[in-house]
């Protein structure tokens, strides 16, 4: 019995889902019938009169099918009842009128007035239908809103700490991204997000937010879900939440989902402070500075060169699946040839990270690397490169990471790189640089962390002593 019910239900679902397809048939065919009827009054198109009845018949059948499928869809869908009522009854009226029109036409009666009414009803029903799927302001939105508002509007809140968290920050986000389906017109999943009481009430699956508990809040779960997920909100075809908006909603729910307090009265982490500050200035948050991969892509590297290097046992790997930037590692090779380095040169635009330590690299071979102008990370640890070679590295303007562990570089040699303002990490463990020169180097590279290594662990007696049981075993 229950399986039969489920089968029935899924059939209802199935036919219901054809409604958006079927509706276009009566619209087209009935309008065409009306057009034929109108034209056949004229002498020139008199022959069309014979087509009117057939097109009315097909239009009538499709109108009835649309009514049926539409009714099935309305049972299982979550739509605004008012809009459904209008659409449903104008649709049914249209179907009835089309039946009359067909019948009267068959009997040879004059039906011009009926087709006029039919056209009117087609337009009306279509509009009601459109309002359900696209929102009631759909038609006038494009003309009423100024162009810059149609494009994604950036939320700007002057004096953000004194603003009201819900009223000034959260509500505008919900308005632009959620109301269309969870607002006054439509309550998909029986959820309405435009009034605090409704937000707290939740929807079909229960509470949508649990104040202070982002892990258990359905709203947070849904908006954080990956886009492939069926449950992801907003639906893929709708405008998505930006990272900033996500952070803000997460923070608001996590801090207790208060509807009255000011921003300053809510708990703020360092991260959310930055996000809030960005609202004030209306500027985009600064891109994550940790990544040294530029956003703009480069052309793809020469596949032949890459293949040749791979065959040599050099690991040439794109930094990410959809990126043309490359990382190259010579870890499997002890000996590199001039040819290897010539090959590298032709990757100068793409090469970002290079590990070429523990090899026979020396000052002469290093010269090949100086054209690698995109390079941001370079490891040449335990090679014969010395101060003279280091001085040449000034021609790598994008360098952020430099590993010189186990080379013979001196403090003087390193200072030659003063012009490389982007350097953030320099590793000089096991070099000729002594601890005394450290403070001087720090002044020259104020933004870089210089690691001289040589860490030692305290000697503790206990490290080698084994505790024994003082007790007698029972």
């Amino acid at each position, binding site marked *: 019995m229950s399986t039969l019910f489920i089968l029935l239900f899924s059939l209802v679902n199935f036919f219901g889902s054809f409604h958006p397809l079927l509706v276009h048939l009566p619209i087209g065919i009935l309008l065409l019938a009306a057009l034929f009827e109108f034209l056949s009054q004229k002498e020139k198109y008199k022959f069309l009169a014979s087509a009117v009845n057939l097109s009315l018949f097909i239009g009538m059948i499709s109108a009835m099918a649309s009514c049926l499928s539409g009714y099935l869809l309305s049972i299982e869908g979550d739509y605004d009842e008012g809009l459904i009522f209008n659409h449903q009854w104008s649709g049914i009226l249209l179907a009835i009128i089309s039946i009359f029109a067909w019948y009267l036409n068959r009997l040879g009666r004059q039906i011009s007035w009926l087709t006029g009414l039919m056209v009117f009803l087609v337009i009306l029903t279509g509009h009601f239908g459109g309002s359900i799927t696209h929102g009631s302001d759909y038609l006038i939105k494009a003309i009423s809103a100024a162009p810059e508002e149609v494009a994604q509007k950036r939320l700007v809140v002057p004096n953000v700490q004194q603003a009201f968290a819900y009223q000034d920050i959260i509500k505008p986000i919900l308005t632009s991204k959620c109301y269309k389906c969870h607002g006054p017109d439509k309550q998909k999943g029986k959820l309405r997000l435009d009034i605090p009481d409704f937000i707290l009430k939740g929807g079909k699956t229960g509470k949508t937010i649990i104040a202070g508990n982002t892990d258990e809040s359905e709203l947070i779960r849904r908006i954080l879900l990956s886009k492939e997920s069926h449950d992801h909100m907003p639906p893929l075809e709708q405008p998505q939440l930006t990272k900033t908006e996500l952070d803000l909603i997460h923070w608001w729910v996590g801090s207790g989902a208060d509807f009255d307090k000011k921003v300053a009265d809510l708990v703020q982490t360092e991260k959310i402070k930055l996000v809030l500050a960005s609202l004030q200035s209306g500027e985009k948050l600064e891109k994550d500075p940790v990544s040294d991969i530029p956003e703009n892509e480069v052309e793809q590297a020469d596949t032949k060169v890459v293949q040749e290097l791979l065959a040599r046992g050099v690991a040439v790997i794109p930094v990410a*699946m959809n990126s043309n930037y490359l990382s190259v590692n010579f870890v499997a090779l002890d000996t590199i040839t001039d040819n290897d380095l010539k090959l590298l040169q032709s990757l100068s635009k793409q090469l970002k990270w290079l590990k070429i330590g523990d090899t026979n690299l020396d000052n002469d071979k290093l010269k090949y690397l100086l054209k690698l102008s995109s390079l941001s990370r370079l490891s040449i640890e335990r090679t014969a490169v010395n101060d003279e070679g280091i001085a040449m590295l000034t021609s790598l303007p994008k360098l952020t990471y430099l590993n010189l562990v186990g080379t013979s570089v001196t403090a003087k040699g390193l200072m030659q790189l003063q012009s490389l303002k982007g350097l953030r990490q320099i590793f000089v*463990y096991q070099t000729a640089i002594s601890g005394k020169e450290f403070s001087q180097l720090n002044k020259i590279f104020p933004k870089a962390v210089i690691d001289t290594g040589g860490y*030692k662990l305290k000697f503790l007696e206990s490290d080698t002593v084994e505790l*024994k*049981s003082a007790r007698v075993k029972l």
Partner: protein
Amino acid sequence: MNKDAQEQRLIREAEHATLQMYTRRHFLKEGAMGFGALAFGSLLGSCGFGPSSASNTIFDASNPLAPKPPMFPGKAKSVIYLHMAGAPSQLEMFSYKPELAKLDGQECPQSLLEGKKFAFIRGVPKMLGPQANFRQHGKSGLWLSDNLPHLATVADEIAMLNAVTTDQFNHAPAQLLMHTGSPRLGRPSIGAWVTYGMGSENKNLPGFVVLTSGGNNPDAGKSVWGSGFLPSVYQGVQCRGEGDPVLFIKDPEGMDRDLRKASIEAINKINQKQFEEYQDPEILSRIAQYEMAYKMQISVPEVMNINDEPAYIHEMYGTEPGKTSFANNVLLARKLVEKGVRFVQLFDWGWDTHGTSASGSVDIGLVNKCRSVDKPITALILDLKQRGLLDETLVVWGAEFGRTPMQENREGKDLPFKGRDHHAGAFNMWMAGGGIKGGTSYGETDEIGYDIVNGKTEAFDIQATILNQLGFEHEKLTFESQGRPFRLTDVGGKVITQIVA
């Protein structure tokens, strides 16, 4: 005998052997099964099944260990995962609970026992106060017990997870859950997933190496670093600290390197023919493994040799060459990572402190275990740091679960030593390096370390975070098996953004 002749002879031998097999099994295997399969295949084919190209697009059967890019530029290039098999007591190491000391010796309230399952505790156990002193360390004020004096010096490198939880309270399933995402056998381990995703950066070394210490393998056995349904080339390669690093790595007496090469080439030719006939990618994996094994005969003894490390490094790590110890394994882990190995998995056995013996007690055995790992782990962090590798090497410390705030009362009786039962509800793990924000902590437990108050962290979350640091979205690293895509984190997993830099 020259090489070609040798090869020809081996191929002839193989063909002969194949023919011999045919005489016995041909009819059954190729005949009956073949007809059956034919019929079934056409049945399936008409239903729209049939062989699918699957979504395992990143798997190139002819070169399964080729280096591959991550999904986005990851901060970590490799992982060193330190697993303390047996589950150390968080209450004597990381979880500072002064309230528990006040309850020491009192009977456990019934409310804590209702609806809970324990491995050994029966009836009403007594509470057991912390058996170690705690102090705050570093700028972050991280609470650590005096059992970890060295780790205290690098407190600000560490991101502490205070509220890790699991639903398994026995070693083997809990270890499997931690490493494969399922408490049952058959899923690939995280190291296998990572190698599947990234390949091996060094063509002479496997992408996933396993080192064990403490006298035993973990309870879950080798499945905990297995490849599950992934091609078997991605399983962890277990190396030994003593004797030959890999068993039978040396050529047998009388076989020189050229002959070895010739025989491997011949075997691979035969396998290639087999592949052309059956199109089973496992055969290509096998070919790749033979080639890798041949290269490893040279590269592995080299990288697994810690004799040449300078004295101060040995002093720093507390290593003694020639022994199997956790310290040696930690040093090896650094060497392997330096050589481009993606995932180094360490298991140290002997942390199961129930209180049944001195070595299994939280005030004696646990202290000794702590002493055996405290210095090497600290040395590892500092050594990676000075070599410029800490940024790109994610160090993960953890276990399969934690231990109860109650004294264990096996079979309802008092035990001779201070010990704690398995506790799945709440325990600690930590991460360092590899784009993790040092000096942070996440999660909170109640005042006796029994239940989680906030920041609940599950195995899936830890796995998702590890994959995230390497540049993978855990939801998208999938492999088609049994007709559907699988992923490490099953249907769970959330990157712990709170500890990501």
